[in-house]
């Protein structure tokens, strides 16, 4: 059996991505992701969902050559879109149970 985890430490994350910790600190400072635990940056632990958003934020800033404020806005909107899509899917499924087949 393989060990699975829903968390990743900042050290491991930076090693995996090949990035300096400062980038992750910037992402957190702009409110794009929040650590699950850890008082100081070197002790931060993220859930894998947050880690995914951090990854996206870093890619977007680099590839679109935009600043953190713009990245934070994009990530907020992407999150909202994801939530709305999920909600939409669920509401459609519920609606079908009340609507009759034509």
């Amino acid at each position, binding site marked *: 059996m393989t060990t699975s985890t829903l968390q990743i430490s900042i050290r491991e994350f930076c090693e995996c991505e090949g990035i300096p910790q400062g980038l992750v600190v910037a992402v957190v400072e702009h409110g794009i992701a929040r650590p699950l635990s850890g008082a100081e940056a070197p002790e931060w632990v993220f859930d894998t969902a947050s880690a995914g958003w951090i990854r996206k934020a870093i890619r*977007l800033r680099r*590839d679109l050559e935009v600043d953190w404020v713009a990245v934070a806005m994009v990530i907020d909107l992407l999150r909202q879109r994801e939530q709305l899509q999920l909600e939409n899917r669920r509401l459609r499924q519920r609606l079908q149970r009340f609507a009759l087949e034509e």
Partner: protein
Amino acid sequence: MEFKDYYQILGVDPAAEAKDIKAAYRKLARKYHPDVNPEAGAEDKFKEVAEAYEVLKDTNRRAEYDELRKYGGRPGGGFEPPPGWQSSAGADAGHFSGDFSDFFNSIFGGGFESGAGRSRRGFGIRGQDIEIEMPIFLEETLAETSKPINYQIPVYENGQVRQLKKSLKVKIPAGVAEGERIRLKGQGAPGEGDAPAGDLYLHIRLVPHPLFDVEGHNLLVTVPIAPWEAALGARVTVPTLDGRINLTIAPNSQSGQKLRVKGKGLVGKTGRGDLYAVLKVVMPKESGGEARELWQQLADKAAFDPRAEWSRQA
């Protein structure tokens, strides 16, 4: 190998100024970035655009590319770099995270490696992270389960990519939710040299259930009832994710009314959610003979106008 017209890819004139190239790239990058555009093909388009920009934004690289363009730049025609060609501009790994085309590598390659999500450590490059979709039935989220998974990882051998099949048994923790990612350390693509392997991410997808709908940690089940059950009240058996329960329907219940069954929802971080039974009054397909007469009697005797609201407004 096909010659790539980077100017055409960015939609700019070959004489375009650096600032116009930058603007064209930014516009296309916003449109096709795979983190923003989920459509199929967007990622390939973005890679193409990023590669074009990688060359044209750098004065030296652009000059070399322009020279080659004169030499063999017929789009669609075969392209080989001139004999003895060696780039002095080269490529840096600083900006772009995607893979470059063979065309790019034949011009600017040599000692340059790139790959999404890879990083250097010691000698060699860390293996790629792999992400696969993991469909999970609602029933399976109630307790920790172990599931077998099969997936493929790309392995680079002598410049060729080979798909390696892998099988694993993984523990899925109780209470996983839609969209969550489970990380399996070191189960991604192997690293090069002494570098560590990448990770495997399981992207959790809850399979739509034939009976239950999900709302946060709560579940909804639609309970069809007869009109007389709604009128007189009834005791019905209702399915839950784990077993059945008896539910009392009060007299004069409405269609769409929700009855809460505590603790029969999904497993959450703070305990189990609830199950909501949503009543749906269903008419019999046909009612003939005596049943029809009884309906008629009801229609005559019951002083009920379901559209009273409308007539008041009109």
